[in-house]
């Protein structure tokens, strides 16, 4: 049957198709193999119409029945049968089948395109994302490619890390120099009872891998300071800030403005949380909001403070959602706005934040911000000593 089909149609050598590249002069090249075969590799620019769907889909790929249409498959047999169908039954006037299929094409050393696709496991794992139009395949691919840095695997970092891992963020970096303590477990849900005493970066890595082994975890078991910040944060797409002190917040702000990395920033205290996205040069930075830090007695950041265990849950998950929005480019991220959540009264308040045209940092070009200026802040030891 195949031989008979080949007698009825015209065949073309791969070399002739190769020489038509890149614009092919109006020739439509159609791959008639199955989905999985096409996904592995195909001829650059080829349209895909599986032979089983030829009748219903060919017009979408080749609308003009007078145009030259070249079909190929793995070895030239299926495409011969498909060419006969196009010619005899569907009225295509100028159909050819490529001899030897993609196998011969590759043997000749011609380039193939390897399209990106989700594995069957990923399609299942992220199926609920794929069903949301705002994320879909494109958005999921962006999440898989994303590199997100979490500053702290504590109250805020725990839920953020878990949800970003579950969402399929490809690389999650974690900066934390602490070890898991019993008093953390009231709110730091990524850690567990049997990991008390373990470095938080290791415990968080395990929590992430337990949910999604596909995530690459980069551990930075250190404290951020002026000497290491540029090296650590460079290359990340988004930074999630849950740091517990002002000096690091200013340092982070200055470094992230310099590298133009958006920061999803949040803080919590008692029953109150606040959240904003500082996107350099797009919206205000932290110094636009607070050009000077508060005096020590108004800065309860030095010692231990009480916090409702579930509070970092809601604020940290809001951070995770802002990260997903930034990465996938969906919705309106919380740029130039600050969200206050007051749990006792169950109120959410949105405030407008504006760029300060005289901001000491983000009113200037990133190249003008020197190392010496970064994180300029009163002496931290003295600051906290004054707080008592």
């Amino acid at each position: 049957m195949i031989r008979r089909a080949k007698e009825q149609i015209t065949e073309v050598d791969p070399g002739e198709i190769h020489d038509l590249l890149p614009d092919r002069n109006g020739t439509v090249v159609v791959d008639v193999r199955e989905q999985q075969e096409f996904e592995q590799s195909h001829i650059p620019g080829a349209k895909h119409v599986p032979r089983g769907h030829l009748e219903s889909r060919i017009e979408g790929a080749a609308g003009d029945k007078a145009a030259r249409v070249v079909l190929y498959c793995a070895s030239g047999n299926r495409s011969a049968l498909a060419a006969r169908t196009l010619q005899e039954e569907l009225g295509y006037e100028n159909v050819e089948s490529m001899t030897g299929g993609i196998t011969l094409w590759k043997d000749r050393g011609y380039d193939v395109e390897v399209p990106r696709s989700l594995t069957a496991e990923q399609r299942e794992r992220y199926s609920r994302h794929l069903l949301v139009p705002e994320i879909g395949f494109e958005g999921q691919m962006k999440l898989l490619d994303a590199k997100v840095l979490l500053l702290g695997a504590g109250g805020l970092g725990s839920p953020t890390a878990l949800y970003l891992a579950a969402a399929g963020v490809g690389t999650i970096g974690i900066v934390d120099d602490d070890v898991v303590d019993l008093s953390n477990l009231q709110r730091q849900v990524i850690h567990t009872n049997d990991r008390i005493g373990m470095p938080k970066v290791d415990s968080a890595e395990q929590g992430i891998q337990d949910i999604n082994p596909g995530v690459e975890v980069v551990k930075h078991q250190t404290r951020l300071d002026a000497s290491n910040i540029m090296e650590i944060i460079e290359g990340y797409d988004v930074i999630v800030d849950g740091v517990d002190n002002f000096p690091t917040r200013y340092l982070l702000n200055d470094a992230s403005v310099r590298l133009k990395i958006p920061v999803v920033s949040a803080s919590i205290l008692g029953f109150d949380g606040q959240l904003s996205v500082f996107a350099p040069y797009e919206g205000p930075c932290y110094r636009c909001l607070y050009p000077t830090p508060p005096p020590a007695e108004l800065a309860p950041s030095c010692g231990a403070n009480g916090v409702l265990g579930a509070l970092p849950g809601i604020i940290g998950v809001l951070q995770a959602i802002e990260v997903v929005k930034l990465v996938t480019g969906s919705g309106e991220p919380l740029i130039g706005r600050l969200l206050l959540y007051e749990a006792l009264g169950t109120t959410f308040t949105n405030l407008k934040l504006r760029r300060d045209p005289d901001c000491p940092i983000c009113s200037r070009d990133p190249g003008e911000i020197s190392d010496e200026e970064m994180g300029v802040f009163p002496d931290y030891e003295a600051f906290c000593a004054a707080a008592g």
Partner: protein
Amino acid sequence: MRRWASFPTTRRSARLQARLSRAVSTVKIPPVLRASTGGEREVSAEGSNVGEVLNSLADRHPDTKGQLFGEDGALNRYVNVYLNDEDVRVLDGLETAVKGEDTLVILPAMAGGR
């Protein structure tokens, strides 16, 4: 209401104006200032502009004064104040007019994520 406005001031409208100028606003107190307000999260305060409302708050809860205002009487730079959702610094600062039912939000910098 519009028709009344075209009439000369009556005792009744004068009373109304006086009441408006002593408008009662709600001030949202941030966690770090609650020790100074006896733990209250929201405080009602009177005044026709932002400065008056904050001073009325400071009169009632004197510990808040030094935290809100510098020695020159200006708002401390590490404290942001919002009239409803807008930073008063982009409005008329402490002179910004306040109507009854407005909400002032005091927002000092916060850190703490652990």
